[in-house]
């Protein structure tokens, strides 16, 4: 009882009172903050009774502080509110630009196909004008290349920070392996209907291999 009296419960009570009327969900930060308040409150009594436990408590407090720093370094807010939406916008712009360029090129090609070759001069003018349209439309490649570089940079940013976080919080491989999230309806459809999408070079079967199968 004497030891319990030495516990400074005031900080814990204040912390709980401050958060009593909160309606939002408890975050990892809240848990860490509570752990810090508890550790501070217990420190005096623990130091007097068991020095070994004191060291252990200090190590835990240090780990909590370190983990908080690592979470800050993740810059989650920056990722969620800025980098990921921007990457999405870049990808949308790429889709639109490629579609627009493809349409322009196809229209030019169709105009050439439909042109009357009997009037050589007029035909030549049509071909020249449409070829210029094709050249101009091909400029999309430069801009989309730059947009893709920015998306890659965002992915690298996320990869670096998540990898560093995993390393710093010392996640063990056995902790990383779990049963995995439940299969979504989209994943189920892809599995059942064998939807893999385009493969990278060298990963899919070639047309020659397919032809042998049908030969």
């Amino acid at each position: 009882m004497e030891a319990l009296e030495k516990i400074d419960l005031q900080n814990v009570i204040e912390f709980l009172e401050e958060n009593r009327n909160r309606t939002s969900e408890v975050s990892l930060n809240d848990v860490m903050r509570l752990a810090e308040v508890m550790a501070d409150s217990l420190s005096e009594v623990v130091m007097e009774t068991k020095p070994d436990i004191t060291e252990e408590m200090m190590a835990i407090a240090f780990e909590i502080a370190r983990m908080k720093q690592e979470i800050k370094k993740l810059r989650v807010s920056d990722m969620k509110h800025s980098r990921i939406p921007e990457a999405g916008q870049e990808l949308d712009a790429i889709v639109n630009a490629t579609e627009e360029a493809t349409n322009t090129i196809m229209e030019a090609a169709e105009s050439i196909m439909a042109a009357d070759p009997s009037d050589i001069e007029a035909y030549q003018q049509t071909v020249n004008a449409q070829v210029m349209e094709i050249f101009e439309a091909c400029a999309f490649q430069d801009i989309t290349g730059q947009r893709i570089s920015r998306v890659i940079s965002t992915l690298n940013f996320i990869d670096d920070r998540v990898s560093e976080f995993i390393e710093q919080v010392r996640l063990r491989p056995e902790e990383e392996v779990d049963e995995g999230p439940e299969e979504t309806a989209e994943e189920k459809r892809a599995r059942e209907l064998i939807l893999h999408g385009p493969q990278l070079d060298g990963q899919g079967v070639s047309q020659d291999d397919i032809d042998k199968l049908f030969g």
Partner: protein
Amino acid sequence: MAVDLQMPILVVDDYKTMIRIIRNLLKQLGFNDIDDAADGQEAYEKMKQRRYGLVISDWNMEPVTGYELLKQVRQDPALCKTPFIMVTAESKTENVIAAKKAGVNNYIVKPFNAQTLKGKIEAVFAD
């Protein structure tokens, strides 16, 4: 090309650009009666209305894929003999084998050229 150039062809793809490309390639090869559909469901409805000489279909479409369309067509006694070519970016072995097992007549991996398309159409009608 020992193929009937007057036969109606149904091109099934959810990308209008790809339909336009295939349509232009077919025109270059001499075909003129070309119809299109945006997915397997629309294609099946069109196939019930009109007898097509050839179906050229993509695999990955929503809500009904080309693979589902192929299986549906092969199970339908009125349509089961319709020549069917899959033109798709799905190039995993399991896709090719599944399509062959389901009764596809030929399989083209995107991107492809006019020569490949011509060769496969000829091969289907040579069988």
